[in-house]
């Protein structure tokens, strides 16, 4: 199995960057971690950024097309080639989910173009956040597939590399001199040891498995949502940081005769999300809309698409203005009968 020293990662990524943009978790001078291009600061290998590569594959604000004054329509999906480095398994699994969403009933040209031009290099997780629950969902801390390359931080200064696709393989071949070799058996043992050590680090204070089971069987008490709705301030942040949230709203505007259609991130908590043209809202109560969000992710996605609509990344709690999110849902779901 291939192994790369930490000091060789930047040269490797720079060489990959000769014909494409290279994005990674970057720690800036203020201590904030953002998914940025590698020339903007030092790569952080230990933490995952607040917003995953979602912002790149499915931007907060995206122009879909323009209608010129003569009626010509100009649509330009983004064809930039990119390397997305340092993605956690939860985020890589979320890409599998969004791939499904954006291709199931229709092929979304904008997402598809960004997606097929992206090389995914994942970084297996060795230090979960207190709100992570990928271990329960089987979406982490390591992946068996769904990556082009996966790095394992088996020692302080070096990473083992698993190859998941041909594109991944060529990304290694281009800079062959930067890699060393570790015998497969030894490498496997190191990876297993790392995995075992990581699994021990997950918080055990909440029974996510039980919460998920209850949700799948539709046995969540309505009181859970009532309580949740009291604590939620409707900032929309949970959907914006969620790597599997795919909902968007579309708006149009006219400027100097040119009509532009854009799409932007949306949150199903908002009243306007479910309100119908007549003014009727099937989810009029806030608690009903909250129920919809959790049911969609935990009840209907498993039923309809055989995937849980949550990959256990824990961001919806950490970056929630009142610190609730999936963590609080699971806590309420398992305690309120």
């Amino acid at each position, binding site marked *: 199995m291939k192994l790369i020293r930490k000091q060789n990662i930047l040269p490797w990524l720079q060489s990959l960057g000769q014909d494409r943009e290279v994005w990674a978790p970057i720690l800036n001078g*203020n*201590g*904030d*971690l*953002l998914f*940025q*291009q590698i020339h*903007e600061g030092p790569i952080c290998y230990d933490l995952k950024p*607040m*917003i995953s590569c979602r*912002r*790149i594959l499915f*931007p*907060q*604000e*995206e122009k879909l097309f323009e209608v010129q004054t003569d009626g010509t329509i100009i649509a330009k999906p983004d064809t930039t080639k990119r390397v997305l480095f340092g993605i956690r398994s939860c985020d890589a699994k979320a890409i599998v989910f969004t791939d499904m969403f954006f291709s199931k009933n229709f092929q979304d040209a904008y997402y598809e173009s960004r997606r097929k031009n992206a090389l995914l290099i994942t970084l297996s997780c060795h230090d979960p956040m207190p709100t992570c629950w990928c271990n329960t969902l089987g979406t982490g801390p390591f992946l068996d597939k769904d990556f082009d390359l996966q790095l394992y931080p088996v020692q302080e200064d070096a990473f083992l590399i698993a190859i998941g696709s041909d594109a991944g393989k060529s990304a290694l071949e281009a800079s062959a001199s930067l890699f060393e070799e570790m015998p497969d058996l030894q490498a496997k043992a190191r990876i297993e040891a790392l995995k075992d050590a990581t699994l021990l680090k997950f918080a055990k204070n909440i029974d996510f498995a039980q919460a998920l089971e209850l949700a799948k069987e539709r046995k969540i008490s309505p009181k859970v949502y009532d309580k949740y709705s009291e604590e939620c*301030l*409707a*900032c*929309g*942040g949970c959907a*914006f940081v969620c790597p599997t949230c795919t909902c968007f709203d579309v708006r149009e*505007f*006219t*400027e100097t005769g040119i009509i532009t259609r854009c799409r*932007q991130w949306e949150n199903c908590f908002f009243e306007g999300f479910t309100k119908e043209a007549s003014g009727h809202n099937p989810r009029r109560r806030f608690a009903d809309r909250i129920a919809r969000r959790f049911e969609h992710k935990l009840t209907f996605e498993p039923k309809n698409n055989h995937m849980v609509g949550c990959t256990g990344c824990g961001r919806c709690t*950490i*970056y*929630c*203005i009142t610190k609730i999110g999936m963590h609080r849902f699971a806590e309420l779901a398992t305690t309120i009968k």
Partner: protein
Amino acid sequence: MSTVLTTCPYCGCGCGFYLHTEHNKLVGVTPSQEHPVSRGTLCVKGWNAHEMVHHPERLKYPMIRENGVLRRASWEEALDFTARKLQEIRDKYTTESIGFFTSAKVTNEENYVMMKLARGVFLNSNIDHCARL
């Protein structure tokens, strides 16, 4: 795409967030995790603070009222007109017949120069803003 750390333009909490830009257009907002107020969070207004900047109705050029309607003017013309009219009014009446409303929306530096314009240039303390409103 590049990112710039700035301060939210809405309430007095003063959250810190990053504006994401692409080809001189704002394309999104990410709250600063380390900022002591925002702590990785924002309210719904903050999360969408970038959008209004590019709204087609933005005022894009100076205007002067002529025969009852506002018409487009160059900066030179608009500033010359404004300065001349202000001088005329100061000369015809008193400096105190002029008032200045500064703003709780603009920067400290801009408030300072507005205050300096009123007090230092017009020798006039008729300056206030909507703190009360």
